[in-house]
């Protein structure tokens, strides 16, 4: 700390003096009887409360913080938040009378922190004015309002078919390497591109730090980092830190929710979180249940996700939207943790390996993905054109598998298949290129009106690009108007269709002249 200001120093001294004043208070002291695997068993401390912080004397001065999880008649099982090598059996343990808290507030935005709010980047100390409880109850019934504002992901497939609203919990589930994190990152980037003002919080639970740093690098390059908090734990951090990460990040998000702002939190991923909790529970000798998870593994996630909510107008109308991520094994969504989280959340986006390798990216399975509350939050413009998209795609898939066996098809079937192929093509979207409201509306409107029907499938993407380019350069005013999210006016619809048909005609000519 080279840039230590006198003001900060005097504040520090003042708080140190305040601490000194109440120093000779009565303390409760216990003794560590056993230690290992990140768990300390402490004798004494009869007044310890559940989840209370305990300071344990470390070898060579200083202390290690732990929190009490098992309270029994004879001893306390506490989970260490630091290195267990620093603590010896026989060390003294003191009660602090506090439960876990983390710094919260706008000062954290743009920073990379650990689950206790300590900086992991090189931008110096974080001084916040407030602290937030890591474990905190969810807002009550009267404090909430139903989800009604859109949280645009910028992904055509998501915004049109599984729309997400502010305050919703939408699960992203799929096998490894199917683009789960990509959806989350694109959503974060879109918040910056659309100037939605939403604060992003990305929680890495037991992720490889190489992956986390790649994500941070990307967020910086896209300019999103200035409205993002990253809470990072790596696979080598103690299980207790991995367990805490989602809760403390939620505490940071709640600050924005309770102050009338909007925040988006991404838990990447809760499968590893459950595994970290399983490790802690087993080491605390709690009885194992199914897949060796403890009995309260459902509550572990339900109490976490319940804190994401849309607040009522009286409470400032803020929101906290959650995108938890779950990794499945070989597409098995009926495993223990996936079914738990599916039942907790308000819908899921299911990613399929097959689709991913067919080149359909984002590899969203239309049939298995749902959004239970997002419909009422969907942007009107997109809603007006996305009405039968799901149905068309479902029919297409059914017909496509059936049509493989027959040679001649009736024109109606043929038309549906052709339309389906083009829609599938349109829903493909490269990473880091979220689309705005007007872009999504224009594409879907043109497709619905059949503008793409006679364009060769492999040219659909290039025509889509040309269409958007043309609309933006020639009808910027209309498109800016459309981008506000209201249902497109008749004139706007006509404009889009006119441009689309003109382009389609050019593509057809080019094709026939070959």
């Amino acid at each position, binding site marked *: 700390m080279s840039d230590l200001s006198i003001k900060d120093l005097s504040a520090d001294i003042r708080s140190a003096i305040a601490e000194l004043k109440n120093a000779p208070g009565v303390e409760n002291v216990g*003794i560590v009887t056993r230690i290992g695997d990140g768990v300390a068993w402490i004798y*004494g401390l009869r007044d310890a409360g559940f989840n209370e912080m305990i300071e344990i004397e470390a070898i060579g001065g200083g202390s290690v913080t732990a929190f009490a999880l098992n309270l029994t008649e*004879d001893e306390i099982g506490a989970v260490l938040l630091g290195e267990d090598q620093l603590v010896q059996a026989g060390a003294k343990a003191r009660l602090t009378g506090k439960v876990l808290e983390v710094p919260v507030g706008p000062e954290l935005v743009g920073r990379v922190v650990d689950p206790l709010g300590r900086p992991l980047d090189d931008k110096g100390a974080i001084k916040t004015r407030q602290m937030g409880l890591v474990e905190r109850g969810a807002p009550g019934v009267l404090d909430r309002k139903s989800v009604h504002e859109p949280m645009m992901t910028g992904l055509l497939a998501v915004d049109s078919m599984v729309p997400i609203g502010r305050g919703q919990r939408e699960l992203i589930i799929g096998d490894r390497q199917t683009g789960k994190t990509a959806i989350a990152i694109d959503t974060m980037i879109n918040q910056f591109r659309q100037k939605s003002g939403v604060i992003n919080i990305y929680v890495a639970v037991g992720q490889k730090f190489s992956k986390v740093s790649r994500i941070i690098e990307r967020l910086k390059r896209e300019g999103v980092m200035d409205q993002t908090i990253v809470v990072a734990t790596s696979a080598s951090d103690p299980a207790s830190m991995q367990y805490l990460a989602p809760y403390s990040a939620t505490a940071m998000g709640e600050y924005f929710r309770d102050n009338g702002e909007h925040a988006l939190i991404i838990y990447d991923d809760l499968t590893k979180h459950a595994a970290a909790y399983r490790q802690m529970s087993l080491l605390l000798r709690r009885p194992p249940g199914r897949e060796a998870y403890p009995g309260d593994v459902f509550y572990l996630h339900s109490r976490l996700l319940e804190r994401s909510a849309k607040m009522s107008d009286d409470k400032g109308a803020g929101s906290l939207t959650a995108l938890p991520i779950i990794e499945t094994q070989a597409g098995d969504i009926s495993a223990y943790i996936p079914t738990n989280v599916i039942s907790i959340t308000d819908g899921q986006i299911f990613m399929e390996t097959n689709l991913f390798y067919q080149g359909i990216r984002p590899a969203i399975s239309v049939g298995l993905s749902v959004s239970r509350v997002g419909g009422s939050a969907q942007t009107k413009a997109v809603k007006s054109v996305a009405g039968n998209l799901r149905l068309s795609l479902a029919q297409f898939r059914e017909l496509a598998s059936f049509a493989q066996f027959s040679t001649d098809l009736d024109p109606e079937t043929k038309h549906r298949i052709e339309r389906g192929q083009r829609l599938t093509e349109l829903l493909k979207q490269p990473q880091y290129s979220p689309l705005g409201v007007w872009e999504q509306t224009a594409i879907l409107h043109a497709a619905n009106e059949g503008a793409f029907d006679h364009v060769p499938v492999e040219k659909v993407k290039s025509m889509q690009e040309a269409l958007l380019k043309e609309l933006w350069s020639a009808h910027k005013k209309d498109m800016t108007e459309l981008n506000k999210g209201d249902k497109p006016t008749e004139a706007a619809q006509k404009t889009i269709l006119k441009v689309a048909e003109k382009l389609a005609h050019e593509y057809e000519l080019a094709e026939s002249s070959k």
Partner: protein
Amino acid sequence: MSVTSRKDIARAVAAQLERGKSTQKIAKGLAQYLIEERRSGELEAIMRDVQALRHENTDVLEANVTSAFPLTAQTKAHIAKLLPAKKVIMYEQIDPEVLGGVRIEAGSTLIDATIKRQLEQVKQGVN
């Protein structure tokens, strides 16, 4: 796991003490039991529990008092008054390392008003 809990052992010992059984006999019995059950490592913890129970039942508190210099009778009386018990049995310890002030340990309560601890707290606050 039908192990007698440490609390129960402590309760039994405290009850015997109160009934006025000779300490030697109690010690012998407890030692035998702990060795048989291979729990001799828990002795210190059991004694602390006994102490706590004794405080609860008979209002007698045993306290370890550490200071840098020998305490005057007046200070001792003052300390005894501070502690929440009718009768206080004090064990004095002189440790120049605490620099000044006193540290009172009674069961699992600790009142640390030594200069050493205060300096440690300042050090932690500054870091």
